[in-house]
């Protein structure tokens, strides 16, 4: 029996560190008892920060390990930082909520860490099996987190729905993966890419069908139409900090995975999968725009909004070009700030100590909370894509890529959908600024919330002043994916 060589561990150092920290925290929580949750949460944030540092200090070259199952490149690093940032902010935002609602449990932070670990694995997946493992690690944690408030029916229902539908989507994804393996003979991304490059874009029918199923599974994760149905119910049912988490980190990870999978192994089959993405993207943008109009719950509204935003991000993916990927990266990065900021506002909506979720509760906010109203207005304008807010640039770059790829109808439909969507975003601004308040929200907003709200608000508002770091980062991330 020959001794197996130990694979190089250095490329996976951030993941390893995060796994160790998460398990250590689990121990800390178990032995810390009642008083541990807040400390646990801060330690989790510290762990995420350490991981982010480890991601950033690694040298910039592409590295593979675990027999090519795991890859680290510029794209992975950029997306990992975004995911870690999203997770960290979500963790911070949830602390005081959990305490106020008497549901502080240290497991929550640990579960977020494991979910984040799964996301990092997804982003670095370089093999269909690695992809599935990362995805399931993330999903299993998220199922539990969605149902973390066991004593309310809504939360439990949300967790259960998410789980059942998630299982279905996993099945589809696995079925697609097995079809691809069956017809192509390999699960390695590199192997697949080489295979399709040799056949110069031709692929057996089985592989095509496999890709369709694979895409269906991934669409579920980014909640794209028609695999979006779980989103509004889960967003509404889950505790609000969980929703905030759901809206950001997993979305970014899934988009990253989606991008790598389609452009890596199946990069030469653009003609084959482009239509799926176009159809899914149009569906998401249109549904996100129309279905949100009648919503009265702001979390449900944000669910449809995120469906729409994922549709826009997929526009860049549909272009299938380096410019398109750059657009996707910029889009999700800016979306991260807008979404986190918006949820910080939503988490600050309290009436007599209780969290409220109705859009009508925002009426006249500008008179009672001028700063918060201003920030929320900035986020809403940004989400609607009004210049010079950050959201405009996100949309601009994906549409630019789409036009360059000659997907004119996709770009036109996208712009029209954003006009419709602007209605419900700006309606919130109208409620805040032009209507008289009925019942004022509570005055006190937590310090963490205010900080997050302002930081993300300023980034959103003033992105156009100094966009270079993000633009360059996104450009090099996209270049990494295209082997440049």
């Amino acid at each position, binding site marked *: 029996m020959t001794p197996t060589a130990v694979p190089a561990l250095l490329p996976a150092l951030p993941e390893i560190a995060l796994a160790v920290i998460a398990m250590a925290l689990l121990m800390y929580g178990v032995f810390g008892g009642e008083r541990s949750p807040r400390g646990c949460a801060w330690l989790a944030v510290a762990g995420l920060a350490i991981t982010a540092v480890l991601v950033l200090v690694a040298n910039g070259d592409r590295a593979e390990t675990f027999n090519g199952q795991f890859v680290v490149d510029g794209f992975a690093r950029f997306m990992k930082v975004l995911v870690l940032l999203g997770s960290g902010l979500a963790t911070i935002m949830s602390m005081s909520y959990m305490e106020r609602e008497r549901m502080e449990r240290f497991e929550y932070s640990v579960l977020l860490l494991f979910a984040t670990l799964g996301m990092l694995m997804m982003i670095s997946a370089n093999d269909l099996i690695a992809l599935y493992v990362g995805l399931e690690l993330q999903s299993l944690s998220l199922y539990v987190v969605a149902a973390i408030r066991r004593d309310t029916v809504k939360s439990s229902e949300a967790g*259960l*729905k998410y789980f*059942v*539908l998630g299982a*279905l*989507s996993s099945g*589809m994804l696995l079925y697609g993966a097995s079809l691809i393996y069956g017809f192509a003979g390999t699960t390695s991304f590199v192997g697949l890419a080489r295979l399709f490059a040799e056949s110069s874009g031709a692929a057996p*029918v089985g592989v*095509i*069908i496999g890709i*369709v*199923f694979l*895409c*269906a599974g991934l*669409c*579920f994760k980014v909640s794209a*139409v*028609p*695999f979006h*149905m*779980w989103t*509004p*119910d889960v967003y509404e049912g889950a505790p609000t900090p969980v929703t905030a988490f759901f809206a950001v980190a997993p979305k970014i990870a899934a988009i990253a995975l989606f991008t790598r999978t389609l452009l890596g192994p199946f990069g030469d089959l653009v003609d*084959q999968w482009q*239509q*799926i993405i176009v*159809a899914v993207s149009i569906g998401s943008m249109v*549904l996100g725009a*129309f*279905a*949100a*109009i*009648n*919503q009265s719950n702001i979390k449900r509204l944000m669910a449809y909004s995120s469906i729409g935003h994922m549709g826009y991000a997929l526009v860049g993916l549909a272009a299938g070009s380096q410019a398109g990927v750059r657009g996707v990266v910029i889009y999700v990065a800016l979306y991260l700030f807008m979404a986190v900021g918006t949820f910080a506002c939503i988490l600050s909506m309290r009436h007599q100590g209780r969290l409220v979720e109705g859009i009508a509760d925002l009426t006249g906010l500008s008179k009672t909370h001028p700063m918060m109203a201003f920030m929320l207005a900035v986020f809403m304008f940004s989400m609607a894509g009004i210049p010079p807010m950050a959201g405009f640039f996100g949309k601009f770059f994906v549409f630019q890529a789409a036009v360059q790829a000659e997907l004119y109808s996709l770009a036109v439909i996208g712009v029209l959908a954003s006009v*419709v969507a602007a*209605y419900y975003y700006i309606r919130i601004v109208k409620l805040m600024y032009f209507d008289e308040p009925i019942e004022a929200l509570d005055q006190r907003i937590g310090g963490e919330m205010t900080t997050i709200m302002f930081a993300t608000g300023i980034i959103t508002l003033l992105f156009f002043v100094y966009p270079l770091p993000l633009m360059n980062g996104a450009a090099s991330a996209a270049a990494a994916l295209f082997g440049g």
Partner: protein
Amino acid sequence: MYQAIVFLPLIGAFIAGFFGRVIGDRGAQIVTCGCMVLSALLGIVALHQVAILGQVKTVDIFTWIQSGTLELSWAVRFDTLTAVMVFVVSFCSTWIHIYSIGYMSHDTSIPRFMSYLSLFTFFMLALVTADNFVQLFFGWEGVGLCSYLLIGFWYDRPSANAAAIKAFIVNRVGDFGFALGIFATYLVFDSVNFDAVFQAVPAKAGSKIEFLGQSYDAMTVLCLLLFVGAMGKSAQLGLHTWLPDAMEGPTPVSALIHAATMVTAGVFMVCRLSPMFEYAPMALAVVAVVGASTAFFAATIGLVQNDIKRVIAYSTCSQLGYMFFAAGVSAYSAAIFHLMTHAFFKALLFLGAGSVIHAMSDEQDMRKMGGIWRQVPYTYAVMWIGSLALAGIPFFAGFYSKDLILEAAYAANSGVGAYAFWLGIGAAFLTAFYSWRLLFMTFHGTPRADEHVMAHVHESPMIMIVPLLVLAVGAVVSGFIGYEYFAGGKMTAFWKDALLVLPQHNTIEAAHHVPFWVKALPIVVAPAGIALAYYFYIARPELPGMLVRTHEPLYKFLLNKWYFDELYDMLFVRPAVWLGRGLWKGGDGYVIDGFGPDGISAATIRLARRAGRLQTGYVYHYAFAMLIGVVALVSWYLWRLH
């Protein structure tokens, strides 16, 4: 200096208009009147320099438009024609400004009024000093705008708004012709500068314009189009309907804009363009026929009107007709001469009427006046002077100019000339009749106003009387003084090159050699008209009523102004309203709104409701949707592969 004449009123208007609240009513009056007095004094100096000393000059201020071959500058052109117009405009305008201080003293928005008056004067001066068609058009539209603003000055009166809109729209018809004329001029001459065009006219005479496969004589087409513009502005037959209604404006406005200056812009334009009209005999004939017809037509309506200002308005219309047929028989200098004398006596009559209205507590209906001449001696006297001048009684201003016109018409020795001469004689008789009808009904007979009004009858304040007296002096002496220069021995030296009359058209010269009866006839018919008026309204006051009963259709016909308004209402207004309503309700409301904003928003709401309903909450529905999605995508690929 020349620029100052034009721009001083603009400065006054600017200050009074934008800082009226700061400087107050009195301040606005002082600023605008001060600027006008300065402008008028400079205007007199300019008249002396240009017309007497012969220093004709054009001052370029700046290049206005430069695009391809279209090149024109903003310039102040001072030749005799301009100098005369500048003198008339600035002189009348100044006294009317001063008169307005008294007349409008009870009004609530004095700065606005003074500002509009000054702005009008600026545009009018810009018009008469124009060096090219475009600047002429600029002034033309500017005075139209001010006319609109001033007719509708009392904007809380629906009738004033209606009259303002009517004036504006009827003028649009004329301006459309004018604009087409300018375009055609540019097409033919490749320039819109007067000098360049005038020099090129003899070479272009007889050239053709192709339009819709027909070819027309270029000069005739140009001149007729431009004349349409003149007709609109000068209220000639067909486009005259706005002028009587314009009397809704304050009386000083009627005096300044609708008697002395703006309405004469058409006459000015024809004279200014005499080098073009001279080469379009056909167009000249049209001008003469339209002018003569208007002179007679308006006079007949003036016979039966009861509103004191409307009588004078129709009289204005009629006198403008005289000026046009004078121009039509190439007696341009006579036209301008009459324009000047008319400006004095007609402004005088209007201001006098304003003084009467002021005295009668804003009553304008002559049937409710009478017997007030002792209370308002000055007004009574100046109204007599104005009427004498208007009727052309010897040695008053109108006598010189009107007789000259009639003689020139006779001397033209053509069918058109004869037509103009006889209609002019008829109109002169009618003019005398309605003028004295006005005097007798207003000042003589038994008082018909109620006691309350009669108790209030009073002479106007000095600030209104002085302008009246000044204008009265003008109405007496302007004809006597001007005759030598305008048409007599000093004529050539006076006009120099400002007007062009071809040798074969020299009717002014011929007018001095007409038979004696031609010269005498106007002097006979005027007193006859006065005598008839005396017989009707003083000697036998019951006679007009009887006449009305026996000739009811004719009376109705005249009273309703030859049914022009009714005809236009039927032909243009109602179809336009009908069409507009159709486009509004059907086109805009139903089609554009229905399928545009309203339709899209309704569809959006419907879609939103349906999209919301998709979310049933049942897991198996969701799972089903996912499966359907996969099946659809797979089917799409299988279908595409085959």
